[in-house]
């Protein structure tokens, strides 16, 4: 087993452990840290798959942006009266049954299929940049517009203007 494969398996195990731990952690900040572990781990896995661009975007946007946003939202929306930032769970039996059942079906489908080891093509950063600005330029520009509109709309939704907050 090469060091790369060993590292991949270790990272996949950490990913699985952190994702399953999210289901059982009852304190919301520790839960956020478990989500951060999952997102950073995915970023490193993308780097191992030779997708440097996606790996860096994942670490910057998810681990840097979304987790900070989530932490802000948590601090603003959690009340201390129900214990120290506790998460409550409900519908446990149907939830776990759905999850385990769906995982079983997917695992059966994965193991029944015979996967061809592909040619492990490596797309360089240059071809990604060229494709973004030639073949996929419409989607690229539209995603920029969507991002702008969404962030403006989100800040309007969360704003504390007096006349549109009805208490």
């Amino acid at each position, binding site marked *: 087993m090469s060091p790369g494969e060993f590292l991949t398996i270790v990272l996949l195990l950490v990913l699985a452990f952190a994702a399953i731990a999210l289901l059982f952690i009852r304190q919301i900040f520790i839960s956020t840290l478990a989500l951060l572990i999952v997102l950073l781990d995915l970023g490193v896995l993308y780097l191992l798959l030779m997708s440097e661009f996606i790996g860096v975007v994942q670490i910057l946007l998810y681990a840097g942006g*979304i987790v900070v946003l989530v932490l802000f939202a948590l601090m603003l929306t959690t009340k201390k009266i129900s214990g120290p930032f506790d998460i409550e769970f409900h519908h446990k039996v149907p939830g776990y049954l759905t999850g385990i059942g769906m995982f079983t079906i997917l695992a059966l489908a994965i193991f029944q299929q015979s996967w061809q080891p592909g040619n492990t093509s490596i797309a360089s950063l240059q071809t990604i940049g060229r494709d973004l600005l030639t073949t996929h330029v419409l989607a690229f520009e539209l995603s920029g517009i969507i991002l702008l509109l969404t962030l403006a709309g*989100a800040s309007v939704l969360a704003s504390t203007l007096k006349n549109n*907050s009805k208490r």
Partner: protein
Amino acid sequence: MTTQLWLLAGALLLCTGLTLIITSKNTVVMLFGVELMLNASNLNLVYFDKLHPGNQGQLFTLFIIIIAVCETAVGLALVFRVFRVLQTSDASNLTNLKDS
């Protein structure tokens, strides 16, 4: 064998996200579940991008990440707004419509 491991990790992320959405009461933690499910699709897309020539998978992953950022921003803004009006972030308490 390694291919199955990668795909199993993606399937596990998807099922964990689904279970988290069903079992959690807190709306922010439900958003964690949505993030996990989106990341499961990203993992599969990047892996299949490695198996096939071209870079369609990585480009698609980039767009999914952008949409996920938009979704998180709007979702957290909604959570914040609902909390200001109803003083709760518990999804099972959100049973009122406007003016009711």
